[in-house]
């Protein structure tokens, strides 16, 4: 089995892809099917763009967030998150923000902002990009970027769907998706 150690990770071993049984691809794994509940079950580390390995060389590859894995009951996951929120300190609500293609992550305090437009404007300024307007039907369709977040259950959701208060209490981290993945989110 060909083993490709990129950034110290054996990406080939963890790569999820379509393959017939007995084909020369050693892992005949299936791709996770697009799922309305999660805006991104698809890893940026190789699933949708097979030849995209050099895209990974600069940024730490965002790991595949697979629904229901590792197999931990929601109740326990929520307890973990509640604890992390407390530890991450008192009144601040700091979450990590990653942008596809950026060399390193940033951290912002969600409590500083009072609404989605404020948050999005701050993100646009911080990363020098344009996210565009949110619409319930189309998401951020038309923009090159789509802001997503990981919620308490470990699912990846589109920013803007739920009321602001619910968002800041359930948001664990942000990821600004770029390119074709982002455009596809408008119609999910």
């Amino acid at each position, binding site marked *: 089995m060909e*083993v490709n150690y990129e950034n110290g990770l*054996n990406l080939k*071993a*963890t790569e*999820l892809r379509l*393959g017939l*049984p*007995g084909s020369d691809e*050693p*892992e*005949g*794994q*299936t791709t*996770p*099917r*697009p*799922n*309305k509940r999660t805006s991104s079950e698809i890893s940026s580390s190789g699933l949708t763009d097979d030849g995209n390995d050099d895209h990974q060389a600069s940024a*730490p590859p965002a*790991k*595949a*967030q*697979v*629904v*229901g*894995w*590792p*197999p*931990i*009951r*929601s*109740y*326990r*996951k929520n*307890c*973990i998150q509640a*604890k*992390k929120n407390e530890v991450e300190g008192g009144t601040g609500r700091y979450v990590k923000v990653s942008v596809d293609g950026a060399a390193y992550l940033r951290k912002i305090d969600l409590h500083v902002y009072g609404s989605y437009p404020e948050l999005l404007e701050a993100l646009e300024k911080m990363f020098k990009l344009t996210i565009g307007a949110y619409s319930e039907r189309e998401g951020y369709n038309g923009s090159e970027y789509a802001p997503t977040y*990981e919620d308490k*259950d*470990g*699912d990846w959701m589109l920013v803007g769907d739920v009321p602001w208060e619910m968002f800041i209490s359930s948001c*664990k981290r942000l990821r600004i998706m770029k390119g074709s993945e982002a455009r596809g989110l408008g119609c*999910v």
Partner: protein
Amino acid sequence: MGSYSSELKRSKDSDESARRSSFPDEVLERVLSLLKSHRDRSSVSLVCKDWYNAERWSRTHVFIGNCYSVSPEIVARRFPRIRSVTLKGKPRFSDFNLVPENWGADIHAWLVVFAAKYPFLEELRLKRMAISDESLEFLAISFPNFKALSLLSCDGFSTNGLAAIATHCKNLTELDIQENGIDDKGGSWLSCFPESFTSLEVLNFANLTSDINFDALEKLVGRCKSMRVLKLNRSVSLEQLQRLLVSAPQLAELGTGSFSQELTIHEYEDLESTLSNCKNMHTLSGLWDAKGIYLPALYPACSHLTFLNLSYAALQSVELAKLLAHCPRLKRLWVLDTVEDKGLEAVGLNCPLLEELRVFPADPFDDEIVHGVTEAGFVAVSFGCPRLHYVLYFCRQMTNAAVATIVQNCPDFTHFRLCIMNPGQPDYLTNEPMDEAFGAVVKTCTKLQRLSVSGLLTDLTFEYIGRYAKNLETLSVAFAGRSDWGMQCVLGGCPKLRKLEIRDCPFGNAALLSGLEKYESMRSLWMSACNVTMNGCRLLAREMPRLNVEVMKEDGSDDSQADKVYVYRSIAGPRRDAPPSVLTL
């Protein structure tokens, strides 16, 4: 027992049994009434018609592992004298959000039948069922003798339902609410127990987050003199805990509330002294946010501990080691991986009687974590704990050699659940698949009943499982295998297989259909994100009319793909309460 025999004589079979059996019915029923295990009872009922009847009249507890395998009417017809019911509903993967909302497993239809046929019902234990507040209220008012309610991993209800139980169940001895998707609307439900109510023996509300009225709780604990199990929620402070324990030193199982309040020296000493009075304590849990400096207060209470659940307390290795030095009798230990390998070494050194170990990940979704436990910790435990037979282990690295050593040290495993958290990860030292690890497990552990596999696995793992795992009943597989052959090996071997759950594996129709005859001897099969198609499922449904074949479709997926398949045997026929996203073939 005299009343039993007169009822039996009224039945049609009574003449036959009086003629044929030289064994008086009364004696037979008396003997059978001593049988508790539902498997023994099932065997007994197959001996002959007399025994079938004697058994069904004497059975007081019924266990139903899949609520859709049978209907409440069928149950009530066969077993007229039930006082205790255990019911399990949704497939296990619903715990991990893989089952759609409103899938089913609603308890209400069962309660309606029970209210008519079992008005003296005393106990109801539910796992992965949907239960509404209306159902809880119906339960509370329909069964005057109702004593014990246990809800584990259920959803659909709120604290209002608990209020109904507290208000109406005058004979309640047990209220056990564990890890449910409960809508916590506040703690006032606890104040609904009337002041005249004194029968409670088991109270577990650790699941809930809201503050309860401590005054009401203190009074309740004070007047329920038979209380032996008390598991508090996080809102109860250390100081409040101390006050509760003063009036309940007889507790056998204690779940503390939050273990991190700022205490004065005096308060700390009070706590320590009160805990040392709890001479019956064999189970300890809770310890939310436990601060290392307060753990020594527990030491005097630990000498008889057999079960310590630290899975919500992020202890460091040194803290755990010091605590375990006081727990020589420990048989079951649950911890977070914050204790690391060093903590597990302490387990191996201090707990020679250990039978069960569960290590949960404190940070399962954070990639940057380089801590947690490795194969070294597991190996260390295996050297010190030869009686280990149940393990659940979440880790980020494992080797084939380590697992081989572990099972050599502990050959009596009945439950081996290993979760290498990165899907499809090989042996990190040799880069080989983890096939030999699980091969060693099934070859060495002949008593193995339950196995969960992980890591990079080829079909060889499943060849081993099919060939060697003669007592295996439950198998969980994720991100593993290379072809249909893997699943075929399992279905062709494993004579005692009852539950098979598979996700994200390259098994398709050939594999699915190779188990045609097998599925009727199993409770259920789950396959999601595999290569099974709708046509394969239709074929299965056509060939095996006594199986229910259900497919859950996801939005936007290919029409021909069977995204999630759930197959189970049933004598109740296809179910009628499936939501639109679930297709019954």
